[in-house]
């Protein structure tokens, strides 16, 4: 185990920004009042929430801060939005989503299917891009909800949200649109009005706020029933005493993320491309699983043919490098990632697929180091493979 950590797993979670932590501390210490209380002492925490709500409103470009609901995480945002809107439209029984959604959304639909909903799962092409034609054809009068992730957590592939919204509204004005935006917050600009989304969920810890806080945007035309019932907090849409320090934290994180969007699009992207090109150039059995698809700037999903992903991660970990894999072995499930399977990634590469995800904290030195050790690690694992002939053939073709 190396002492130094090179963290390239920012789609899993991120480091808390120092400024975010600083902004939270007073509310973990002396400003502990319940924001619902009547005395003056509560004014500061109550104001802090208002301020954070405005920051989040600006971050996603919502029309009104009343459209912002604070939750505990991305999964809660998804559950509240999806189940809440269906609770208001009980006559409609059809839902459309994608085959590559995050489990926190996908498993909600699996459950709703058991409750009698008809759910269509839209597929993707080999680059991970959504089949918009199939989506358009699936919409009918009974469609209560369409739910599409903004960008995929494993591949980083961005879905054309504005276009999808137009398709939905042209087919059925009453169909609601939920967007799981957890993987784009802090990576590309979010504009809920321009994109025409009804509901959108984000999670703080994916963009340098701590774990334990999320946001659900619900536009003023969309009404939901609450998932957590109790007090009047969040205008009755999410009961429970406000998690003041964390709400302040996600507010600051939104502000910080907005400042860094340009850096993400230029510098983070440059480092991601450098890593990617280095690996693809120096390792003959590596392939880019997403091809030319439009992606968030920080994510790269690379398949290493005839070698297995968990073993790559273990060797990377020995060098202090953190990444993740779509391999079956890492998840405890026995099947490789549902995303890579939906993309029909060849079976020679699917088990050896590694996701690298960078952040504003990733340095040039980090990337140079990964690029310097990666060929050796893959070579070591390749030498174990029973597929020496196939590997030799792959090498021969690559050098041609």
């Amino acid at each position, binding site marked *: 185990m190396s002492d130094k950590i090179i963290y390239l797993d920012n789609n899993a979670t991120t480091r808390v920004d120092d400024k975010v932590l600083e902004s939270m501390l007073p509310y973990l210490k002396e400003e502990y009042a319940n924001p619902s209380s009547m005395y003056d002492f509560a004014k500061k925490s109550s104001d802090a929430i208002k301020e954070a709500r405005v920051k989040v409103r600006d971050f996603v470009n919502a029309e009104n801060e009343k459209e912002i609901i604070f939750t505990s995480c991305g999964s809660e945002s998804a559950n509240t939005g999806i189940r809440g809107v269906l609770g208001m439209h009980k006559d409609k029984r059809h839902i459309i989503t994608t085959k590559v959604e995050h489990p926190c959304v996908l498993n909600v639909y699996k459950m709703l299917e058991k409750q009698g909903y008809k759910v269509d799962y839209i597929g993707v092409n080999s680059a991970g891009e959504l089949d918009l034609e199939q989506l358009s054809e699936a919409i009918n009068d009974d469609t209560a909800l369409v739910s599409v992730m903004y960008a995929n957590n494993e591949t980083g592939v961005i879905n054309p949200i504005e276009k999808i919204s137009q398709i939905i509204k042209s087919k059925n004005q009453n169909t609601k649109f939920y967007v799981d935006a957890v993987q784009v917050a802090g990576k590309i600009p979010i504009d809920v009005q321009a994109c025409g989304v009804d509901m959108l969920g984000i999670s703080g810890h994916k963009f340098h706020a701590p774990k334990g806080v999320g946001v659900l945007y619900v536009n003023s035309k969309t009404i939901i029933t609450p998932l957590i019932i109790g007090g009047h907090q969040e205008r009755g849409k999410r009961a429970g005493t406000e998690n003041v320090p964390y709400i302040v934290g996600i507010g600051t994180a939104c502000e910080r993320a907005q400042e860094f969007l340009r850096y993400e699009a230029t510098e983070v992207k440059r480092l991601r491309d450098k890593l990617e090109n280095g690996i693809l150039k120096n390792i003959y059995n590596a392939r880019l699983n997403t091809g030319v698809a439009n992606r968030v700037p920080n994510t790269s999903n690379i398949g290493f043919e005839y070698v*297995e992903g968990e*073993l790559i991660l273990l060797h990377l970990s020995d060098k202090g490098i953190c990444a993740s894999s779509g391999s079956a*072995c890492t998840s*405890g499930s*026995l*099947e490789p990632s549902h995303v890579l399977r939906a993309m029909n990634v060849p079976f020679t590469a699917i*088990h050896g697929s590694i996701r690298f995800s960078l952040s504003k904290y990733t340095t040039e030195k980090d990337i140079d180091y990964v690029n310097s050790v990666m060929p050796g690690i893959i070579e070591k694992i390749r030498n174990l*493979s*029973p597929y020496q002939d196939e590997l030799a053939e792959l090498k021969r073709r690559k050098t041609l």
Partner: protein
Amino acid sequence: MWDYSEKVMDHYRNPRNVGKIDDADAIGNAGSLTCGDQLKIYLKIKDGVVTDAKFQTFGCGSAVASSSILTEMIIGKTVEEVRKITNKDIADELGGLPPEKMHCSVMGYEALEDALKGYVDKDEIDTAYDEINKPKTEEKIICTCFGVTENLIWDAIKQNGLKTVEEVTNYTKAGGACGKCKSAIQDIIDTYYHKEKKDKAEEKSSLSPAQKILKISSIIDNKISPELQKDGGDITLVDIDGNSVFVKLRGRCSGCKNSTLTLKAFVESTLKDAVDKNIEVVEVN
């Protein structure tokens, strides 16, 4: 993060006996690329003793460690001794494996079995011919996703005392993908532990008809009815004819779409478990 033992980590970091033996006396293969792990083992055998062993593995850390330690375990041993090695021995030698990773040790056992299946001593060449010419019996595949046979599942249950489908999945991968074979796996577990079950069943069906009626009535009153009442419903026993139990559902249950399901899944299984496995529940209006 998996909880790997020091020994597992040592073996995937520094795998022993990696490679291929060109003039191997026995070669075994288990798993496949599509399944996510595969092991090939090569043996050199002289005078009934394994003199050398090498492996090639496509797989995770524990798959490589299982393969590597297996080669160390068998070099210098007689073929007879090697035939006795089980997956449990491999896992034990590694200082244990996480439950979800036990299938890696089974893969080692499988590859070894495969290698020795085809191997015969020169002295036994005649018996070997007989063996080869014997009509081959098709092995029954239970899990089509991972190509797991009934025999392998049976061996895993036997060697490791597995009791649940989940355990069988951890050890053999069977049932770990589409899950369609889970009931077939349950059947194999049931068959394996059949004797125990049979004894119990005999004990239960030895009730006299009067005792049986009393028992059914008491279970409905004390066990089933309170459960249904929790959901705002209730059940009344109307008649019993042999193994057919006629019941009436009241309250919320009768209008509820799931009433048939409630009947079949809950009432029937409760009565089957407690009284007689041949009981059938019939709803009357």
